[in-house]
């Protein structure tokens, strides 16, 4: 019988958005988990009903600070579906490049934090060091390191300059040896393998039961990827493959993300080579009555947008589903039966976005006295790695 509850959150360095995990523990073992969300509920769906279709693009860009382009991507796909139009080909290539650059920087960010929680601070510093060139590319081509504001219904807002291409390619190619280094550091290191393999496993059946998406599903051998399943933008015009792994644990999730770094680089390089010249937007004047569904494979999985229009200037209904909505719920399965020191990395393995503020504490259920705080939890996880190293 569990006699202690460990609260993680609502503010914790493992999470960008505040969310609250209540770990029920029996000694060292997690026996149950309650998940509470809603601490950062901004009612964006309601706000969208009072904005024009063009304004909503910027609104949804503010949903996530890391994968900020995922929502405009899915949203503009939904508008294109509603209108039944396809943007000019050059715009499709630009969209693809922005989407894939974002995947690279987001995966590197996750890799860094995962390394930190396991006590591999070198991995953390490397990963974030090599994420910088990606942000530099963003700054050169969009004007911003984050929140690029590149998308608009029916196309993109800014064109790319051909004279930037050699520099972008050079910068991207210089990252490939770094990815090799991460691959070696993670896949060949016996301690990382021991700390993460078979930890937080989701079976194929769990993937199906919880309908999880993205690398969380692909790490369990389920090859779902919207970019392949329902090709949009330029994803059917370039050669690439869906990365899957077996095992379903934290290790498999890391492997999927690392290998996806190569695929994304590959997609961007092909897009730069094959990008056609021409217009970058359609002139959309009116919105018809109807409904549209748009999807995009964000770094964390499928983003889903549903738009209902009555022919006016604003959507009547705008439903948004982020991948974490499905993925976080699967923690109920993944974390049970593991130890507290593994819980941090398991909860982080679905990449639920991270936060700078922390407010974590282990409270003795009976006395209400504080036993551990967030730093202690990270320390516990790092110490376990240290013990195994010796």
């Amino acid at each position, binding site marked *: 019988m569990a006699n202690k509850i460990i609260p993680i959150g609502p503010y914790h360095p493992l999470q960008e958005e505040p969310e609250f995990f209540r770990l029920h523990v029996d000694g060292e073992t997690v026996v149950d988990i309650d998940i509470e969300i*809603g601490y950062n509920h901004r009612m964006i769906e*309601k706000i969208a009903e009072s904005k024009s279709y063009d304004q909503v693009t910027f609104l949804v860009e503010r949903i996530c600070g890391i994968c900020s382009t995922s929502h405009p991507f899915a949203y503009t796909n939904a508008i294109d*579906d509603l209108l039944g139009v396809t943007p000019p080909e050059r715009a499709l290539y630009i969209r693809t490049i922005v989407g894939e650059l974002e995947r690279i920087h987001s995966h590197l960010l996750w890799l860094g934090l995962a390394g930190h929680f396991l006590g591999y601070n070198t991995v953390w510093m490397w990963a974030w060091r090599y994420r910088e060139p990606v942000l530099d590319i963003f700054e050169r081509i969009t004007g911003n390191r984050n929140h690029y504001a590149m998308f608009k219904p029916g196309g993109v807002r800014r064109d790319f300059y051909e004279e930037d291409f050699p520099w972008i390619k050079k910068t991207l190619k210089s990252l490939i040896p770094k990815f090799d280094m991460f691959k070696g550091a993670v896949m060949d290191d016996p301690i990382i393998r021991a700390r993460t393999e078979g930890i937080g496993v989701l079976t194929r059946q769990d993937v199906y039961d*919880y*309908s999880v998406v993205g690398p969380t599903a692909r790490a369990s051998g389920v090859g779902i990827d919207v970019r392949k*399943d329902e090709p949009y933008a330029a994803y059917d015009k370039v050669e690439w493959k869906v990365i899957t792994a077996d095992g379903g644990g934290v290790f498999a999730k890391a492997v999927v993300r690392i290998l996806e770094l190569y695929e994304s680089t590959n997609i961007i390089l092909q897009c730069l080579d094959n990008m056609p010249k021409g217009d970058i937007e359609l002139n959309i004047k009116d919105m018809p009555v109807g409904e549209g569904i748009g999807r995009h494979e964000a770094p964390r999985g499928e983003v889903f947008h*549903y738009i209902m229009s009555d022919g006016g200037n604003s959507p009547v209904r705008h439903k948004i*589903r982020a991948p974490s909505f499905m993925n976080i*719920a699967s923690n109920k399965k993944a974390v049970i039966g593991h130890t507290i020191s593994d819980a941090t990395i398991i909860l982080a393995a679905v990449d639920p976005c991270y936060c700078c503020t922390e407010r974590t504490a282990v409270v003795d259920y009976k006395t209400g006295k504080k036993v551990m705080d967030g730093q202690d939890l990270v320390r516990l996880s790092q110490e376990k790695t240290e013990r195994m190293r010796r």
Partner: protein
Amino acid sequence: MRRTEIIENIKVRCGKDLLELNDRSEKRVYVTIKKEILPKIARYLFNDVRARFVIASGVDIRKAIEILYHFSMDEIGLIVSLRVILDKSNLEIESLTSIMKCASWIEREIHELLGVNFKGHPDLKHLLLKDDWPEGNYPLRRDS
């Protein structure tokens, strides 16, 4: 082939409870059905077709509340959206949590934002709004 087969099977299973089938495009099908038959069709899509449950979306259309259940058949890139229309005098529908666990959170969300009662949901508490949110106050309703 598989696409036509799925749509035919939905038609057969619905019978006269099928209100409208909008085969909008290659990748999008909207099916309006009576609410009584929703668990049967959801079970067919989730268990037999092994479709992935994407999400449900509720909307207040003044006279009624409309809920769309979106299912994705990833191998053929098709989304089938099941539409049920609930009259405002009886905002009650069978919960799908016994068929698919992943429906639990979104049913809680629709419950608190639109005031729909999901019969048989094991834990229909607040998801996004705080626990002491005033009762009977639904942010996405338009009936004022």
